[in-house]
C-alpha cells in the first residue's frame, strides 16, 4: 500500500474541498473522519458564501478569492449543491446603525465588494414582506448560498472518483512522528500515513492539534437555527440586521442573538442566529430560541403564524481573532491546518483549499496566507 501525498483529518466542507483541490492538482489523498461525511458543523449551518458580513481585511480578501473559486473552479458543479447567487440584504432600523452600515460598505467597496445603498422606499422591491420600519439597507449582490452537506458529499464523491480514499468512523487518537516530523496519524482503526497531514477537523481541530503537541486555540461557539414549515417564496435574499456584523466579530461568552433570515430551495425558511460559548453542550436553549424568534418577527411580522418544524444547533470553530488557521505549522513539520473559520467555513472552504493546495505544492499562493498562520497566537502571547 502506498502512502498518500495528503492525509486529511475531517470530512466536512473544509476537508472535502481540500480533497477536491488536492486530487485535481494530481496529489493522492486519503481522508479520515471520526463521524460521517459532513457530520460535524457542516451539517448544522446555513451554507453561506458571504462578503457582506466581513470587515475589510484578510478574511474579506479570502472571501472574495473563495467566491471566485466557487464560480470558476467549482462553477460547473454548482447545481449539485444548490448554488444560488441570491444576494444579501443588510437592514438597519435606526439612523445610527444606518450610518455605521454605510461606513462599513465604503470600506468594503475599497476592498472590491459590490454594494448598493438602498433608501427605505426601495427595500420592498427586494423584500416585499420585510417590515417597513427600516431606516435603510445595503444590498450585496455577490452573496451566495449553497446546501452545505451536499457540498461536502459531492466534493468527496468527485475526489473519490479521482482515487481519494475516505475512511469515516475513524478517529485520530495521536500522531506518528519521526523526531519532530509528522508522518501520519494513529487512529482507533489503525495507523495512517501521509506525505503531509492536513488538520481540517473544524471545531475539533484544536483537540487534534493538541495531539500533535501544538496549541491552536479553536473553541466551540454554539449557535441555534430555527427551520420553518415549507412556505411559498417569502424571503428572497439573505436578510440580516446590521448588528449581525458586530455580533460575528464579538467574543463574549454569554448569549448573543442577531437576526438572519433566508429561504431555501426546500421551501423552508432558516432563522438565526445565536452565539454563546458553552463548550459542546447540546441541550436546547429555550431562551436562545425565544430571542431568535422574537427578533425575526420584528423584521418579518407576517411570519408570526408560520410554524417552526425544528431547530438545530451547531458549534462554530471560533478563534479569538476571528480569523481561520491556514497553512503549515512550523512547530510540527508536516502538519498543516485548514480550520477555525467560525461561522464562515462553508463559504471560505473553496478559497482556503485552493491556497492551501498551492502552498502544499510550493507554488505562489493567490493570497498571502501569513495572517492565518497557525503559530500567530503563540507570537501574540509572546509580544
Amino acid at each position, binding site marked *: 500500500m502506498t502512502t498518500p501525498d495528503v492525509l486529511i483529518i475531517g470530512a466536512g466542507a473544509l476537508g472535502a474541498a481540500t480533497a477536491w483541490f488536492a486530487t485535481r492538482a494530481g496529489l493522492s489523498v486519503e481522508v479520515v473522519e471520526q463521524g*460521517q461525511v459532513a*457530520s460535524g458543523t457542516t451539517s448544522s449551518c446555513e451554507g453561506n458564501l458571504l462578503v457582506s458580513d466581513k470587515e475589510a481585511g484578510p478574511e474579506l480578501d479570502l472571501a472574495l478569492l473563495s467566491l471566485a473559486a466557487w464560480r470558476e473552479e467549482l462553477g460547473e458543479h454548482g447545481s449539485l449543491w444548490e448554488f444560488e447567487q441570491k444576494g444579501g440584504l443588510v437592514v438597519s432600523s435606526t439612523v445610527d446603525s444606518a450610518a455605521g452600515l454605510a461606513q462599513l460598505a465604503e470600506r468594503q467597496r475599497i476592498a472590491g465588494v459590490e454594494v448598493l445603498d438602498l433608501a427605505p422606499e426601495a427595500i420592498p422591491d427586494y423584500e416585499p414582506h420585510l417590515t417597513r420600519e427600516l431606516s435603510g439597507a445595503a444590498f450585496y449582490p455577490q452573496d451566495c448560498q449553497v446546501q452545505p452537506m451536499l457540498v461536502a458529499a459531492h466534493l468527496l464523491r468527485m475526489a473519490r472518483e479521482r482515487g481519494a480514499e475516505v475512511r469515516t468512523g475513524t478517529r485520530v487518537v495521536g500522531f506518528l512522528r519521526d523526531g519532530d516530523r509528522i508522518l501520519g496519524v494513529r487512529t482507533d482503526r489503525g495507523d495512517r500515513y501521509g506525505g503531509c497531514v492536513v488538520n481540517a477537523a473544524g471545531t475539533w481541530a484544536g483537540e487534534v492539534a493538541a495531539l500533535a503537541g501544538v496549541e491552536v486555540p479553536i473553541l466551540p461557539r454554539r449557535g441555534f437555527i430555527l427551520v420553518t414549515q415549507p412556505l411559498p417564496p417569502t424571503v428572497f435574499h439573505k436578510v440580516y440586521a446590521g448588528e449581525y456584523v458586530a455580533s460575528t466579530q464579538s467574543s463574549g461568552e454569554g448569549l448573543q442573538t442577531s437576526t438572519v433570515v433566508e429561504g431555501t430551495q426546500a421551501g423552508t425558511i432558516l432563522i438565526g442566529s445565536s452565539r454563546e460559548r458553552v463548550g459542546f453542550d447540546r441541550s436546547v436553549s429555550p*431562551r436562545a430560541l425565544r430571542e431568535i*424568534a*422574537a427578533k*425575526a418577527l420584528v423584521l418579518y411580522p407576517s411570519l*408570526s403564524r408560520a410554524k417552526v418544524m*425544528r431547530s438545530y444547533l451547531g458549534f462554530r470553530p471560533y478563534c479569538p481573532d476571528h480569523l481561520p488557521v491556514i497553512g503549515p505549522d512550523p512547530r510540527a513539520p508536516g502538519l498543516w491546518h485548514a480550520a477555525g473559520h467560525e461561522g464562515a467555513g462553508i463559504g471560505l472552504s473553496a478559497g482556503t483549499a485552493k491556497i492551501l493546495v498551492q502552498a502544499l505544492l510550493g507554488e505562489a499562493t493567490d493570497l498571502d496566507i501569513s495572517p492565518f498562520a497557525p503559530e500567530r497566537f503563540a507570537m501574540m502571547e509572546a509580544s
Partner: protein
Amino acid sequence: MSRYDVIVVGGGPSGLAAAAAASGNGLRVALVDASSQIGGQYWRRPSDQAAAQQGTTLESLRRRLIDVDHYPEHQVWLLEPGGEHSLHLAPVHESVRTAAPPVLRARSLILCPGAYDRQLPIPGWDLPGVMAAGGVQALVKAHGVLPGRRAVVAGTWPFLLPVARQLAEAGAEVVAVCDANSLAGWLRTPLGAMAVPAKMGEAVSYAAAFARHRIPFRTRTIVASIEGGDKVDAVRLRKVDRAGTETLDGIDLVALGWGFTPSLELILAAGAATRVDLDESLVAVVDSWQRTDVAGVYVAGEATGVGGALLALAEGELAGLAAARDQGRSVDRGRAGRLQRQVRRGRAFATAMHRAHPLPPDWQDWLEPDTTVCRCEEVTVQDIRDACQSLGAVDARTAKLLARPGMGWCQGRVCGFASAKLAQGKGKRLAVNDLAPMSKRSIAMPVSLERLATDEAH
C-alpha cells in the same frame, strides 16, 4: 407557569392509570393530552358518548381523576429536563378554547406518548384512499364515518383484525385482510398465548366475526402495489414467497399497518436511555418501577415496548405509584408487586406477539425506484439509495441530511423507520444510533414563531 408534583403526558390507558395512581397517593397531578377527550387511541369513541359506555375500566379511571388538572387538546413542543422538568405546551389547533398555561413544571414526569401504526412504503401508498389502519379505526369508531365501501386491510399484527371487523360492521365490504405472516407463527408461541389466556378468547371472537361478514383472511400475503390516478382504484396482492400478483379491482380504501411505532421524541428530549425492541422499534429503557435513567422521568405504555392496553394499564399504574414513592409517599407495596408481575407477564406475551409478526425480510425488494418513502418531502427509494451509494452515506442520519427523508412536516414520524432500514440496506438489525436520529425532534411539535417568541422565560 404552573407547578405540579407530577405531570403525565398522554391520556391513553397508561397515562390515565398513571395519573389516577399518582393522584390517589396524594400527588398534585397534571395530565396533558392532544385529544379533547380522555382515552387515547385505545378508547376512542364518539364525542357525545360518555366514558361509562366504554366499559368499566375507563369509567373507573375517569372517576379517579377528579383531582387531576386535565389539559386537553395540547401538545408538548419542548421538554426541558432539569432538577425540575419543564414542559412547554401549545394547542393542537388554532380553535382550541381552553388555554393551558404555556409552561408546566414538575419534579416528576410520567411520559405515556403511545404509538401509531408503523408504515412501510408501498408503490402507490400515497394515493388518497390509502390510510393507516389506526386512522381508519378512528374514523369508524370516533367519527362514525365510513371512509370506503370496498376495503383491503393489510400489513401484519393482530390489530388488523379489529379494524377489518369494525369496517365490516359499519357496512363496508372487506375484500381481503392480508397478513404477511401466517397464523402458524402465532401458534408456535404457546408461552405467549398462555401468558394472557383472555387473548385466545379474543381470537375466537374474531374468527366468528370474520365468518359472519365473509371476510377473506389471507396469510403470507402482502399488497405489492396500489393503483389509481388521483385516488385508489385497485390493489395488487402477492404471496410473500411466490412471484406473480393478483389484482383486486374497484377498491376505494386500503388500511395499512405493520405493527406500531412508539413516539419517542419526548423521551429522547429528556435524555433518557433507549434500546431497540424485538420489533426494531426504538423504546425507552425502564427499570422495574418504570423509571428511566433520568431522575424523575418515568415511561409507561407502548413507549417502553409495544405490548397493548393491558400491559399499558399495569405499567401506567406502576409508574404513578413509583412517582409517589420516590416523592416520599408510602404506597401499597403489595399492589406494586402485583403490577410488577403483571408487567412481566405482559412483556412475555408482547415478546411472543412480536416473534409471530416480523416484517417480511424482503420488503425492500418490492419497492420501485420511484416509490415515495418520505411523503412530506417526496423522497423516493432511489433518492435514499443515491445518498448511500454515490454520496457515501452509511447511516440514517447522513442519508436524511443528504436526501431529506424525515425533514418535512411530520419530522420522520411516518418514514423514519423505513428510511433507516433503507439507509442500512437489507439483512441487518437497526441499532439505537440508526433510529435515534429519525426519532429525535428538537421541537416536539410544530409551533408558531409567535408562540416561540412569547414563550415564557425562566
